[in-house]
């Protein structure tokens, strides 16, 4: 009799212990997996930042120093000093003590290229929003003839790899007389980014109920006012996604920039940084310092919009 009454209790206790263990095990697994993933993602960036504060001599030491033993800001100083002078084969050794005196001959192009990159990226972001937002609203909410076809056409352009477009783009830009002009980059980057922006915004606007659109219009909004007063405030997470995407795509773009820009007047950051690797001498510490400068604007952008990025990730997960 006692055995019969005791056994369910023992069973329950066993069950509880087992489920507690299982939960703890799962937690441990997730923690380890997250740490591994975090290391995988962060290690290159940590090394980039760390090595930019090291001398050339320290960078190549074995084992590598994750934390600089003799931190130096000379790499950065050299970047800003390079602005005022040109480097030749003869003068290349006198610049950056940290790199043993070597800096790339194109070092003075770095800061102007950063400015070019920034102008291009900002222009692409602004024009993306100006074109993408109204286009997406129209495609999502106005039932015009050929609506589906135009959405598919826009999507189809994203299937074509950029490399296939290089030659047609080149001829197009040359005929416009825009070679070696940052406008050539703005125009071609728009062609590449706008379809994606429209696609992101269309899918968001489509998820906003039609009745909200109708309510706004009955309440006294014209189409444009409906867009600005109801849709844009609601679409903030998607807008942030579009801004980040357009900015990063332009900031990082290499192939088209390589084709259309020949001189520092229009060269962008990726082109100039890449040129450092094919110079008289290769200075790792200098290149890494340039790399740190190159990631600063995207990082700032991400920090500014961080709040919306998170809400963008969870948008639609919970019914409002």
């Amino acid at each position: 009799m006692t055995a019969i009454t005791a056994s369910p209790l023992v069973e329950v206790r066993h069950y509880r212990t087992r489920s507690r263990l299982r939960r703890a095990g799962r937690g441990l697994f997730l923690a380890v997996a997250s740490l591994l993933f975090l290391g995988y993602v962060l290690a290159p960036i940590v090394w980039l930042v760390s090595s930019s504060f090291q001398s050339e001599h320290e960078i190549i030491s074995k084992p590598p120093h994750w934390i600089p033993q003799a931190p130096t800001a000379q790499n950065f100083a050299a970047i800003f000093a390079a602005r005022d002078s040109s480097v030749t084969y003869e003068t290349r050794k006198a610049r950056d003590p940290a790199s043993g005196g070597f800096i790339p001959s194109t070092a003075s192009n770095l800061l102007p290229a950063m400015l070019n990159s920034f102008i291009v990226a900002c222009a692409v972001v602004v024009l993306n929003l100006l074109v993408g937002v109204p286009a997406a609203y129209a495609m999502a909410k106005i039932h015009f003839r050929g609506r589906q076809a135009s959405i598919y056409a826009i999507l189809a352009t994203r299937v074509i790899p950029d490399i296939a477009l290089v030659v047609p783009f080149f001829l197009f830009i040359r005929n416009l007389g825009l070679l070696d002009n940052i406008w050539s980059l703005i125009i071609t980057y728009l062609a590449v980014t706008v379809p994606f922006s429209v696609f992101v915004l269309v899918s968001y606007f489509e998820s906003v109920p039609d009745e909200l659109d109708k309510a706004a219009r009955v309440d006294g909004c014209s189409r444009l006012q409906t867009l600005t007063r109801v849709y844009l405030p609601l679409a903030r997470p998607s807008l942030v996604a579009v801004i980040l995407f357009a900015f990063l795509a332009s900031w990082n773009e290499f192939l088209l920039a390589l084709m259309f820009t020949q001189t520092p007047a229009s060269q962008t950051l990726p082109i100039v940084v890449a040129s450092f690797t094919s110079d008289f001498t290769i200075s790792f510490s200098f290149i890494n310092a340039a790399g740190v400068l190159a990631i600063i604007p995207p990082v700032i952008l991400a920090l500014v919009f961080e709040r919306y990025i998170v809400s963008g990730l969870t948008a639609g997960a919970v019914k409002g």
Partner: protein
Amino acid sequence: MARIEFKSVTKRYAGDVIAVDDLKLEIRDKEFVVLLGPSGCGKSTTLNMIAGLEDVTAGELWFDDQIVNALPPHKRDVAMVFQSYALYPHKSVYENIAFGLRMRKVAAAEIDLRVRDAAAKLEIGHLLNRRPSQLSGGQRQRVALGRAMVRQPAVFLMDEPLSNLDAALRISMRAEIKHLHTAMQTTFVYVTHDQAEALTLADRIVVMKDGVIQQIGNPDDVYERPRNMFVASFLGNPAINYLEGTIDRAGGSPVFRRGDLAITLPPKLAARVAAREGQELVLGLRPEDVCPAGEAGPGMVLSGSVDSVLPVGSDRFIGLKVEGRDVFVRVDKEARHREGTSIQLGLVAERLHLFDKATGMTLLEGTSS
């Protein structure tokens, strides 16, 4: 404060789907009109055309003495309540209600006055600072009503506003909407597929099917004198019973026959079927139009076997098998019928309906009246 008139209005969507076909309808000033029909009957499209949210494909739509076919919604003096409430999720309750007034550049003091007044009437004054996501369904419904009310529009449109509420709330909101109509003294157009809502609220009901008006009339008209079998079966719950049969004049006065069932038609119906001997007709019997067999006249008795007994508190429904047909009737809750037994019930002569089987049209009205 507006009369709405549809002059042969047609709405055709891409792909040649006709949503509304040759609609002729006049909605009088300050009238409460309910558009009633199953989903896809064109009632919401009709409402959207009044609001200006859908284009009119052909025909003319008039507000008073102005043709409004091309007038965009924000230039028409209409307010609308939606089934999903369609509150702006990023605005507080206050701003939701005030938005329509802000868009019309009403002075801030006036807006505040009207918003608080409407909120007090709807008993949502304490919710003004909340977001729609923090409200219950019933509260959202009230905000949506408030948003339309403060506008003091010429036309008040409602698209199934109560469908998302639970049953008890729906009934109390019906009363409030009726009260609102009296208080606002403006034209109401209300879309629903719920016949009980239509019967409770409407001055006139417009029954629609497949984009075509089936009948227009006050609630009594459409319930008591349905023009066709669709209208008859769409109104009333449980639905009207239909028995197909033929007219037989063997004994002098016309008799409706179906198998062993013979119902002597009262004089009013008899006159209507004078020329229809031998034709297939449909007898319509509403569940409540029966009485104990002893109270009915001769030849007005329905016999059948009890198939099911469904008490609903206030009274009982019984399912009968009559000549191979299921017939639902409502009886007193004191009546004790057992399943499987045979019973007889009397018919209320003046409340029977007769329809032409081929066309589905009623035989109770028309040229010979």
